[in-house]
């Protein structure tokens, strides 16, 4: 469904992505793992249209995403729960979720999805009138994911959903990711927490200094010696 072919992205003169190629098929959870500064977030930002690749192509089916500005990419069915969450701090939880559905006009569908998000994250329903900026870190993560879901995306991009959360919350978030996927949303998950990510994903890519160095199905990656040493902390 989503396919990146030989994508090169630069920050000024810094060559951040050196020819990334990856593919996400319908209904999958695909994870992109790697250490700090490997280019994980850069990859997502490039897909989202916030950064423009200097060469290579990004296609959603036959549509060339890399030629579109980011608000149009969003309208084509790509939603992101960004790194650092980027929720609207002075809007209420409900207003944040409604912003997620900004590009949509089907009122009934929006209402349904609102119920769905509250089903996934009952905590958000309890805090419905509270301002986004006053939520705890875990609640903000839920809100960012819920807001992305409100767009009813074809592909959900998740950037480090486990960052800064307690182990219990991380479990909850990952269970929810699986649940969202079972309901039919395709997911591209970027994670530093490789163990957790590989345990729920179907396939995985390992990124290092802007290049994909390894790809396989998730179970095999967990077995891979290099992955175990570098990312799973197994001696």
């Amino acid at each position, binding site marked *: 469904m989503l396919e990146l072919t030989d994508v090169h992205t630069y920050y000024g003169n810094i060559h951040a992505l050196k020819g990334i190629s990856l593919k996400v098929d319908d209904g999958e959870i695909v994870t992109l793992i790697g250490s700090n500064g490997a280019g994980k977030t850069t990859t997502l930002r490039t897909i989202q249209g916030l950064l423009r690749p200097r060469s290579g192509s990004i296609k959603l089916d036959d549509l060339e995403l890399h030629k579109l500005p980011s608000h149009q990419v*969003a309208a084509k069915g790509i939603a992101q729960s960004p790194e650092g969450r980027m929720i609207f701090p002075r809007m209420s939880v409900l207003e944040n979720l409604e912003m997620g559905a900004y590009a949509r006009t089907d009122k009934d569908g929006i209402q349904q999805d609102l119920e769905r998000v509250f089903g996934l994250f009952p905590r958000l329903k309890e805090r419905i009138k*509270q301002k986004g*900026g006053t939520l705890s870190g875990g609640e903000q993560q839920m809100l960012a994911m819920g807001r992305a879901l409100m767009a009813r995306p074809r592909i959900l991009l998740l950037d480090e959903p486990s960052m800064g959360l307690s182990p219990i919350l991380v479990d909850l978030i990952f269970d929810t990711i699986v649940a969202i996927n079972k309901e039919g949303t395709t997911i591209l998950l970027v994670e530093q927490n490789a163990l957790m990510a590989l345990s729920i994903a179907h396939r995985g890519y390992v990124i290092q200094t802007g290049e994909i160095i390894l790809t396989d199905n998730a179970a095999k990656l967990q077995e891979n010696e290099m992955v175990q040493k570098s990312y799973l902390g197994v001696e």
Partner: protein
Amino acid sequence: MNKHIKTSISIALAAGFVAFLFGGWAIVVAGGIAGLGLGYYLFGQSKAQKWQDSIKEALLPTLITAVILLALSIFQNYYVAAAIGKKPIPFNTMLQANATGIGGLIFFSFALTLMHILPLRWQRIAQIVLLTFVVISFPFIDKFTGLRWTAQVIFALIFTILALGLNIVVGFAGLLDLGYAAFFAIGAYTTGILSSPQHGIFLNFWLVIWIAAGVAGIFGLILGAPTLPLRGDYLAIVTLGFGEIVPVLFKNLIKVTIQEPFTCWILPLFRIQTSCITFMQDVDLTAGEKGISPIGRPILPIIGEFQSNNPIPWYFLIIAIILLSVFLIQRLRDSRMGRAWMAIREDELAASQMGIDPVRTKLLAFAMGATFSGFAGAFYGAYVRGIFPSVFDFSVSIIVLCMVILGGLGNINGVIVGGMVIMSADRLFLPALKDFLAGLLKATILPALSSNPTLRAAVEQNANPILYRFLLFGLTLVIMMAVRPEGLIPSAQRKAELRSDEEIAADQAAAEAQA
């Protein structure tokens, strides 16, 4: 209770200050406004369920305010007026003025407090009725008492429209615009050019005001298009530049020639002899420093042409424009576009990920803001009857920005209050304070200085608060930012924010108690 007393004393002192400065009939207006302020405060604080409780709640604060105000008014008339060389008004008039003023104070204070016991829907209706009554009666009270404030209040209302428009740009969309006066100027000059002897075009005011708004809006788009991809500080600097350019441009549009570039410039470059096609030859568009005057005025059946010596029709016209503006701006704020503005203000990057086009959204905020300043410009031109480039300088942009910040960024009611407060300070209080100080000095220090004429002249000239108006504005802003950064009337959003913080704190305390 303690808080009530503090508030009533500060309201009384503020109103007393007005009565003190102006003396005489000013107490009628001061009393009325003090009553509205106090009533509004008590209404917000009220816990009453029955009317007896409301009366009890309002009784003491109203009494305190009334006594202080009355005392200051009487003190003014019999001691201060004499000290600054004014004649005190006769006892009978004094009695009437004070009775009306204090009566108004008591009436409004009780009426507003009592509204709290009404059902919610009726509260709103009652408030609107009361406000309508105040707004409609003001110019007639003003005329009856001979205060002659209406003409100045109209200026305040013109600037209030500007503040409402700027609030869209700065308050809703979060774009700092330091050159807003440029759009005001464009609106005014459009009016001037289209209804004055300058070019012999005399379009009807009712048509011109829409054209002026449209032209200002289009210039909002033209300015916005290249600059809005810029962020924060850069946008502020560019708008600052635009604000400087526009008045200079109007000053210099006195010999406009429009030629067809191909025949006039390009062909001669290749040494091809042609006759240059000229569309306009040396047209004096804006009359430069002399300004455009006189400008056509609105005409209505029955009333006829609006006149300078009768401010009442002007007053109601500007009130109508304000009502229209507030209605439109409220609709804009609650629309899809309004939500997009808010999202852009909060986090532009996140907003673009929601599918909001940041450039288009910001451009529309700019154009909408500019449109309302076009209304203000058209009215200004017709009301003053003449426009000059020097009127639209940088200080106008800054004063309007002050109004928006003082009243409360993003809050429509707050911006109206901010506009009224700053402009009445500028147009009414500073001149009154000047007279007051001059009178006081003449009665006290100046005679003692007669031996030193240089010093005497220096003191006389410098004791003029109008000279320090920008210092005073600046000081007000600094104090406001330090004491009450959310503005006089904070937006509901901020209030809710504070409340939910308290709720979190309460929740946490409860959770800890259980554990």
